[in-house]
């Protein structure tokens, strides 16, 4: 009965009227069906069959599997267990996942394992097992079918390799972005005598360089310049523009030291550099700090940037109107606005990019669902007189509150003059 090749010549000849289909082809097919005995179907099935005792000992194995593995029946039956046929890693997987699941569920399907053939060759397979139980529900043995998965596994390996590569590339990209980003911002702000500074920087995506930037640096013995802005766009293009903006503004500050001429120089540089293809422009607010008694005079110039916010020592909060300036780099002879702010003891000046005011914050009750300048004003008023660090800490909390609503990058620079130890007048302002 146990034949390992397919055909017996003495199979019954079917009658024509019982034949499905017509003619010789149909007759041959029917004849093949009749002679396909269950034994032959088992032995030479297109998959491997294996029956094991509950302790894993092999009790029965079909010719297909023996052929794949290159073992003789007597080498396996009663001598080896299923897990002996697996690679070491496969055995670990079998013991920690496969066997417990089979025991708990009575079956387990589609598990990818590798068998070791007699000659050491590895055969990737997909394994499905069921526990056969007796009439009273007692488990008796385990039936396992094994499918050759060589091609599928090669394909899966290819997918895994591609995924690993993609993950690696993404990590490399993120590292690059982080490094590049860091190079566009000062690692830390310099100490300015008589001034406290703090910053907040939120990057919306680790995959793209942010277009927000800021800086603070010394331009003469006692004067300091700072700027904060937002380049249109993101990524490599924005990074190169940001870099150009930084060194242009720094050079212009050293040359002139006036915020309006710094902006004009920047406008010319950007306009020339990016006029032809791919126009690039930015909004930026530039300031120069000059010591002035117990505080500073801050000269500000703005090109299309949201107004600075002054949180006074007296609790009063006001936007410093630098509105109306044009985008920087768009027109050859752009016009910018200037203003001057006195920063006395207990005053805090906030510069920010529109990532803050345009964050989606439905709770703020604005018509467009954005956080908005009004909400920022109200928030600052609620804060009362504060310091650079205090304002930044509180704003960080606001940003966290936006959660997913914070879709854009955001940068905030806060400058404050420490409040007088004991101020008899109660006010730091002249």
């Amino acid at each position, binding site marked *: 009965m146990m034949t390992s090749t397919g055909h017996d010549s003495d199979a019954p000849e079917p009658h024509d009227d019982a034949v499905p289909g017509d003619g010789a082809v149909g007759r041959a097919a029917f004849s093949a069906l009749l002679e396909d005995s269950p034994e032959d179907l088992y032995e030479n099935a297109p998959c491997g069959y294996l029956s094991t005792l*509950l*302790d*894993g000992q092999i009790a029965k194995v079909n010719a297909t599997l023996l052929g794949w593995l290159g073992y003789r029946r007597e080498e396996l039956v009663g001598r080896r267990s299923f*897990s002996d046929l697996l*690679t*070491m*890693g*496969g*055995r*670990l*997987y079998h*013991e*920690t*996942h496969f*066997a*417990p*699941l089979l*025991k*708990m*569920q009575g079956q*387990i*399907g*589609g*598990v*990818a*394992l*590798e068998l070791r053939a007699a000659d050491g060759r590895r055969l990737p397979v997909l394994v499905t097992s069921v526990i056969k139980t007796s009439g009273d529900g007692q488990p008796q043995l385990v039936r396992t079918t094994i499918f050759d998965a060589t091609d599928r*596994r090669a394909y*899966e390996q290819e*997918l*895994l390799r591609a995924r690993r590569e993609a993950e690696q590339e993404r990590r490399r990209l993120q590292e690059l972005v982080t490094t590049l980003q860091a190079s566009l911002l000062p690692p830390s702000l310099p100490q300015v005598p008589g001034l406290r500074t703090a910053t907040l920087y939120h990057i919306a995506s680790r995959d793209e360089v942010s277009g927000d930037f800021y800086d603070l640096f010394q331009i003469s013995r006692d004067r300091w310049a700072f700027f904060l802005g937002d380049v249109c766009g993101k990524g490599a293009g924005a990074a190169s523009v940001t870099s150009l903006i930084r060194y242009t503004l720094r050079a212009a500050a050293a040359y002139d030291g006036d915020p309006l001429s710094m902006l004009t120089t920047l406008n010319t540089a950007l306009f020339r550099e990016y006029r032809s293809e791919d126009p690039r422009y930015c909004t930026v607010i530039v300031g120069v700090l000059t010591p002035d008694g117990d505080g500073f005079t801050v000269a500000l110039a703005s090109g299309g940037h949201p107004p600075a916010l002054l949180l006074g020592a007296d609790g009063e909060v006001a936007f410093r109107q630098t509105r109306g300036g044009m985008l920087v780099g768009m027109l050859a002879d752009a016009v910018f606005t200037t203003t001057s702010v006195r920063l006395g003891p207990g005053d805090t000046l906030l510069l920010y990019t529109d990532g803050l005011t345009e964050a989606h914050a439905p709770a703020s009750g604005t018509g467009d669902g954005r956080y908005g300048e009004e909400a920022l004003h109200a928030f600052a008023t609620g804060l009362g007189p504060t310091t650079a660090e205090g304002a930044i800490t509180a704003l960080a909390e606001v940003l966290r509150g936006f959660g997913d609503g914070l879709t854009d990058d955001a940068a905030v620079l806060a400058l404050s003059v420490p409040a007088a130890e004991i101020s008899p007048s109660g006010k730091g302002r002249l």
Partner: protein
Amino acid sequence: MGDLDVQARHHVTVSGRHTSGPTLMLAHGFGCDQNMWRLVEPILARDFRVVTFDHIGAGRSDLSAWRAERYATLDGYADDVLAMCRDLDLPPVVFVGHSVSAMIGVLAAVREPERFAQLVLLVPSPCYIDHDDYRGGFTRADIDELLESLESNYLGWSAAMAPVIMGNADRPELGQELTNSFCRTDPEIARSFAKATFLSDHRQELARVNVPTLVLDCTQDVIAPPEVGRFVHAQIPGSVLVTLPATGHCPQLSAPQATAEAIAIFASEVADTADRP
């Protein structure tokens, strides 16, 4: 409310008699979750209070509590065990650790012995990789092969399944239908736990165990072969070694009655000692 937190985080379940008798804490090993105890737990619950839980990353634990650095070594898991003992306000427990959790129990008991009445180490191995004269049974290459096996079997795992596996309260019907869910783990977590487990070497800690210890091994076990069981027994002062009439690495599934009995007999000694004036 630390106790509620820890209970939810580890999906802690408590069963059995809340008497003055000892409390058993059953810790599952690498691969599956606390379902591994489902056959022995009812037997033990007749005589003891039984606490089961899922390690962070397994079963219905809070996956969001998983941190790569914290769980890169077994110490993070041992910290969790101690935190549970503390926050659940457990009396000194009989800690039953299967497979890698046996060693997690050893680490915890070395650190805070006062929290443990006894240790039951079910098929333990302090080190899976061969070193000089020590035979753990595996090479580094074997462990890499396991990591590959894990990876090929997680092709079907998707992030979309995570809420289901975590026990999404909104759609409990999904949880019911999931096959293999007891042993389904986020691939990154599984990989990390596999590394923490199979690349660890805690042979040095065994001699520092100062708690009555029962070592249970099987007649045949690929992962923790009999010689490893004998090694653990020899290293832990005053420990008892019992070989269960079972094969494979999960005697609590293949021989639940014998496993439960061995645990119960040993744990009853605590009760006896405690009863004495």
